[in-house]
């Protein structure tokens, strides 16, 4: 009869083993995070200045990057972290290009651009940054499927390192957009020596750049901890430790902000704005992003080829109402084919909401008895909400939209052809925004429009701002009129900031330079 005891003891032993080995395996992360929190609480004692600054800035981020290797990155949420580890040659601030790792640059001719580099920049491994590292960075960018098309005009064969601090880029054709490509995170300069020594896979986790912070610890799925690099050429970061905690749910990022577990919550949802405003210890900072949503129509489709149908569909959408319902104050209705803060944006006359006119146009096109369209939406984000509202607006004019929620690869793999879709873009340069109208671009629109193709090719070759504006304005007018797309909304980037954050400069994409930010106790 004491078998029952044996059993219970057995169960107990098993459970102890279970909990025991679970515990021992995860001791490391447990220690690390407790040390980070204890260090933040003990910092007040260490700081000697009048205002006490915290030594750790904790940021709630929505997504863990797959890599911190800039040439192998293609998500804004990854560049958000890389921004603090790396620097580009130049940056785009207040509508102009400004020097960062480069001191100056000049066009030798239409296809050769010479950059003069700073001679006082150190990588985080202590090596000096030279033109060799710059050359290496762009060479590997062309070998990465995530960066190659960004730098497609770069002719790396003929690009020359003139001396340690001078490099001359050669281009396949004149390309004003090349400057913008350099400022994209993919142009962040990496240490040649570090990449070659570590190998790609190791570098992706422990990258070496020239930025204010370097990776000290990366706990998969939990957090990345950065520490200030004391050799940073632009002055050592104000806060010694920077922690990115990965919290996928927007509402949880708000809760962490409320409880004071994080100092900053990135990428909040519009539904959380009111809650954060109500908090005593935090507030909202909102700036226009470069993100915009657009309804796309396929020109391979016989029905949608008829311009009257596309106009009718546009007249049937009450855009201000749609944007208000979906986004509230976190987005504006978009009247133009690019986000309003994009380089060279031209504001257009809004398309009026006019169901009668829509019905009339449909009747003229031969669809007085209604029309059925297929509306593909990718799962996630606000796409489905947008599609459902548009569906009901179109229903009023006799257009039935069948919504199919399926991600793009599956949709295409099942042999589907696009009719209607919603797409979010995220860019500030016309060459990256208007590329969706290019014949060479994907499947959603495919206009095969000779004028667009030549205009797209033409404007990026013009270095003179005024001359380029003429071509670009004309192209935007044309796109607005031809209605291959119906631009919908231009969204804002929403930051939740605790009140102890000082010197914060918001960035449209969330690429904040945290090295100049202060956190008081």
């Amino acid at each position, binding site marked *: *009869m004491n*078998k*029952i005891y*044996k*059993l219970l003891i*057995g*169960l107990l032993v*098993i*459970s102890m083993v*279970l*909990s025991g*080995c*679970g*515990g021992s*395996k*995860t001791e490391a*992360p*447990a220690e690390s*995070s*407790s040390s980070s929190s204890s260090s933040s609480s003990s910092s007040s004692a260490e700081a000697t200045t009048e205002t006490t600054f915290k030594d750790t800035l904790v940021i709630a981020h929505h997504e863990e990057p*797959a*890599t911190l290797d800039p040439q*192998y990155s*293609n998500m804004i949420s990854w560049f958000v972290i890389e921004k603090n580890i790396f620097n580009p040659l130049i940056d785009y601030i207040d509508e102009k290009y400004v020097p960062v790792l480069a001191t100056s640059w000049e066009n030798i001719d239409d296809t050769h651009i010479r950059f003069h580099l700073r001679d006082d920049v150190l990588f985080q491994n202590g090596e000096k940054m030279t033109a060799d590292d710059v050359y290496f960075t762009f060479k590997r960018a062309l070998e*990465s*499927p*995530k960066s*190659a*098309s960004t730098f*497609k005009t770069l002719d790396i064969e003929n690009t020359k390192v003139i001396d340690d601090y001078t490099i001359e880029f050669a281009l396949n054709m004149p390309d004003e957009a090349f400057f913008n490509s350099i400022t994209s995170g993919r142009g962040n300069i990496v240490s040649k020596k570090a990449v070659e020594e570590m190998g*790609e*896979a190791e570098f*992706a*986790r422990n990258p070496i750049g020239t930025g204010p912070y370097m990776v000290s610890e990366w706990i*998969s*799925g*939990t957090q990345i901890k950065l520490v200030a690099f004391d050799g940073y050429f632009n002055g050592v970061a104000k806060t010694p430790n920077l922690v990115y*905690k*990965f*919290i*996928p*749910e927007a*509402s*949880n990022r708000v*809760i*962490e902000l*409320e*409880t004071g*577990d994080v100092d900053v919550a990135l990428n909040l949802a519009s539904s959380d704005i009111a809650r954060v405003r109500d908090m005593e210890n935090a507030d909202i900072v909102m700036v226009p992003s470069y993100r915009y949503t657009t309804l796309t129509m396929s020109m391979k489709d016989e029905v949608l080829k008829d311009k009257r149908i596309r106009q009718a569909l546009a007249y049937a959408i009450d855009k201000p109402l749609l944007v208000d319902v979906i986004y509230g104050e976190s987005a504006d209705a978009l009247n133009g084919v690019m986000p309003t803060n994009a380089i060279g944006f031209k504001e257009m006359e809004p398309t009026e909401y006019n169901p009668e006119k829509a019905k009339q146009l449909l009747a003229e096109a031969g669809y007085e008895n209604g029309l059925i369209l297929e509306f593909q939406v990718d799962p996630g984000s606000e796409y489905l909400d947008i599609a459902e509202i548009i569906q009901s607006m179109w229903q009023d004019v006799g257009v039935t939209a069948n919504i199919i929620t399926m*991600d*793009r*690869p*599956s949709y*295409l*793999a*099942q042999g589907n052809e696009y009719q209607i879709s919603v797409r979010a873009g995220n860019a500030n340069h016309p060459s*990256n925004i208007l*590329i969706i109208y290019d014949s060479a*671009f*994907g499947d959603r629109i495919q206009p095969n429009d000779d004028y667009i193709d030549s205009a797209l090719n033409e404007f990026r070759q013009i270095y003179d701002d005024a001359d380029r504006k003429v071509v670009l304005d004309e192209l935007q007018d044309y796109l607005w009129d031809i209605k291959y797309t119906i631009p919908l909304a231009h969204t804002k980037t929403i930051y939740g900031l605790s009140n102890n954050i000082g010197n914060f400069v918001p960035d449209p994409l969330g690429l904040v330079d945290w090295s100049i930010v202060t956190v008081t106790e």
Partner: protein
Amino acid sequence: MLRFLFRRILMMIPVLLGVSFVVFFMSYFTPGDPAVMILGDMATQEDIQMMHEQLKLDEPFLVQYVNYVKNIVTKGDFGTSYTTKQPVLDELLVRFPNTFKLAGLSVILSVIIGITVGIVSATRQYSILDNVATAISFIGVSMPNFWQGMMLIIVFSVWLGWLPPSGFSTPMHWILPAVTIGTSSAAQIMRMTRSSMLEVIRQDYIRTARAKGQSERIVIWRHALKNALIPIITVVGLSFGRLLGGAVLTESIFSIAGIGKLMVDAINMRNYPLVQGGVLFIAIVMSVVNLIVDVLYAYVDPRIRTQFTTNSIRKKIRLGEVGDE
């Protein structure tokens, strides 16, 4: 017993081979190109082609599968994640301790609550205590985990400020997620304990035990519970196995780096090496849990145990040379 273990472990090999083939087959023929998924819709044809070459997606199905199995058997190499370029096994092993800890704590919690309340309910059938326990268990079973998790966060983190709202690094972080999962499976175990105990309590041998003057405590804990344990062990084993495969919703709510969220992300990104490695890994874990459950059956029930004894021992028993134990 050893022979039984050995046989069971051998039997895992065809199971795992089968699982690996099915998963590989399914992911190969699932619509959707990983390169398109990874690169997004701004990618050009050249980018996609470059990605295909880097990921070796252009090789035929059987070549890929044979290489895959070969690498696992010879090198213990489960492949490399498409997105992070880190070894799949590393990705899994980093997250497994969290999942294991969460599952273990939840199961311990649910066993303690479930069995105790279940016994009380069964021995005092239809009493107020039983009715209250039954009502609470129905609430526990039907309350969605994500909702319960959010409520716990709001109460204990936001209002009271006692526990951290997310993460899984310190014991303080473990409490809310473990309670979230533990209570819902406790309800299940409690229902199973109650019905199983009720069945046993009506048996003749319980009446006999009582008739011979055995104290009620011993009657319930030794005579009744022991015989009622088999279905309870089954339920506990199943829920432990299920939890080791990851509790996606709970992991998301508490921002825990566990297997569940890793797998869902991998599936969404068409990160096939990680999906395949993950499923295989879960299959191994599940097999081991099943094995443990079977061994526990044998411990609890002598009838099952006799099936494991070897022929020679059986012969000796028949000849009366040795007794059973």
